[in-house]
């Protein structure tokens, strides 16, 4: 469905070359192709603008204009910049000096929080930790059942409390973890809109009470332009420490990864690759960069550049 960015760039440069020497203005036409590709991948318009400026500066500064393969040169720069922007610290959960470590999962409705909570718990259980899942979604029908079923599948205990508020459940869950000797508490929260004042305040109170080491924002890889509002608002109110990108087993290009990274500055720590409860996978910035560009073979392409 998407034409290859590199073919388009190549075409642009070939056409220009017919007129003689390439100029800086010619690079602008290439930049328009890059803009198109990033927008088709759902990178936010504003993020695209900043990104393209950055790439242009590098492209003009380097020998792209004199290069025999300017198309590949530009792709190489784009790829490197994307990879660098999405890179950063490792896929690790910051552990508390004195257990239990507390992790809160937050995000929009249906993003994949509950599933991700179970995947995270499984990963830790397999590393001989003793996780506890806390069911603090008191709104969605059968949310607690869902977490209990998943906990049962992976043999991780699930704490729940009927009739209590989400903040009370989180607090009681923490005490329960101490009692059981669990060293990691994963709090599943209800999906909410970033503009829902009451529910965002609820998360702020929860944060105050459980003092989490990590607040992970769970983002659906199919998210479009609005990812920027969502990420900014959650980050402003909660100081998110990391991002988890879900549903990457689909065929969305996943430009939201770049948007969310740019909007929060937080690393993307893990990715969700399926509905089944399997351990979360680490995030690979290079793979994500190729995916956003719609090219499986960026590396081989660049080697030829």
């Amino acid at each position, binding site marked *: 469905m998407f034409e290859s960015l590199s073919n388009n760039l190549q075409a642009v440069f070939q056409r220009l070359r017919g007129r003689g020497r390439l100029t800086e203005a010619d690079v602008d036409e290439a930049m328009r192709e890059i803009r198109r590709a990033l927008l088709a991948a759902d990178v936010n318009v504003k993020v695209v603008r900043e990104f393209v400026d950055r790439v242009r500066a590098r492209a003009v500064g380097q020998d792209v204009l004199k290069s025999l393969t300017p198309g590949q040169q530009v792709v190489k720069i784009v790829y490197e910049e994307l990879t660098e922007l999405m890179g950063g610290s490792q896929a690790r959960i910051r552990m508390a000096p004195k257990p239990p470590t507390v992790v809160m999962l937050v995000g929009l409705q249906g993003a994949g929080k509950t599933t991700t909570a179970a995947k995270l718990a499984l990963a830790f259980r397999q590393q001989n930790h003793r996780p506890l899942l806390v069911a603090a979604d008191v709104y969605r029908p059968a949310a607690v*059942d*869902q977490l209990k079923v998943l906990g049962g599948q992976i043999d991780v205990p699930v704490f729940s409390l009927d009739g209590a508020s989400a903040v009370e459940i989180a607090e009681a869950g923490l005490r329960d973890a101490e009692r059981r000797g669990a060293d990691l508490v994963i709090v599943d929260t209800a999906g909410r809109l970033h503009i829902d004042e009451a529910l965002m305040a609820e998360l702020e109170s929860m944060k105050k009470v459980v003092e989490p080491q990590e607040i992970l924002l769970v983002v659906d890889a199919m*998210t479009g332009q*609005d990812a920027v509002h969502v990420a900014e608002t959650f980050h402003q109110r909660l100081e998110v420490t990391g991002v988890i990108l879900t549903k990457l*087993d689909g065929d*969305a290009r996943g430009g939201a990864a770049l948007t969310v990274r740019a909007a929060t500055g937080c690393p993307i720590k893990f990715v969700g690759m399926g509905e089944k409860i399997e351990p979360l996978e680490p995030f690979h910035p290079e793979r994500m960069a190729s995916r956003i560009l719609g090219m499986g073979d960026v590396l081989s392409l660049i080697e030829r550049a």
Partner: protein
Amino acid sequence: MGLFDRFRKGLEKSRAAMADRLLSVFRGRKLDDSVFDEMEETLILSDVGVDTAAELVEAIRREARKRRIERAEDLPDVMVDVMADFLGSQSEMAENPDGPTVVLVVGVNGAGKTTTIGKLAHAYKSQGKRVILAAADTFRAAAIEQLMVWGERVGVDVVRHAQGSDPAAVVYDAIQAAKARRCDLVICDTAGRLQNKAHLMNELAKIRKVAERELPGAPHEVLLVIDGTTGQNGLVQARVFKEVVQVTGIVVTKLDGTAKGGIVFPIVREEGIPVKWIGLGEGMDDLQPFDPRMFAEAICRPETRV
């Protein structure tokens, strides 16, 4: 609250942001290229997509010229007309006059299928219709329980089997039950699935086939639920689901947030599937029939007066 009031209230927030932007973009300006460039960017920010945004802007530009518009302030009127026109007319739900109407609800994971079914059941029940739900998501943890909570909430029966059983068999049973109990409507929940998973899409085709066999003409509606925050992948969803189960209508959910749901423009343009409902919240009343004009207005009118 009237239907249009509810619609407007739900879209107010997103409109406020969009309206601010459009007003500041247009106020006191001449109609030059930069105005149209910014209009195009605004549309892209609503997830309309690069190509469709360009096409819309071209159409708006043509129409503005035809109407001899000179001030940018007057553009939103033109935008609303062109965009509403683009979306086509309001589209009704199909009905089976000789027995139960079967509605199959499909979509990717977490889009809002089960919630939409709860809302639909409530809407039809309020019209005095007899509704039965089929819990044919036998895969996701507690999906059956979730639908049962909705069934209780709205007061309709739910046909269910055990978790892990064959979803097509649930649909079969539900249609049988609907015929026996003289129900007007059977709404079938299905497990969320990503359109690139061939085996899951085959399973969906099979579910459809069982419904066809059980009741000629069924399913009368196949609703594809699309999360309103979805970007360009929404178009791929529409294309593949349409191919596999012949989607007859789109439901766009979660428009109570700040996302605009602009992906429906390329879907309508390229797949020709009408949008039938929009979701504006998690409660049972938060579903509205799609009105193209209202939708376009909510996206581009600078002021809240209508």
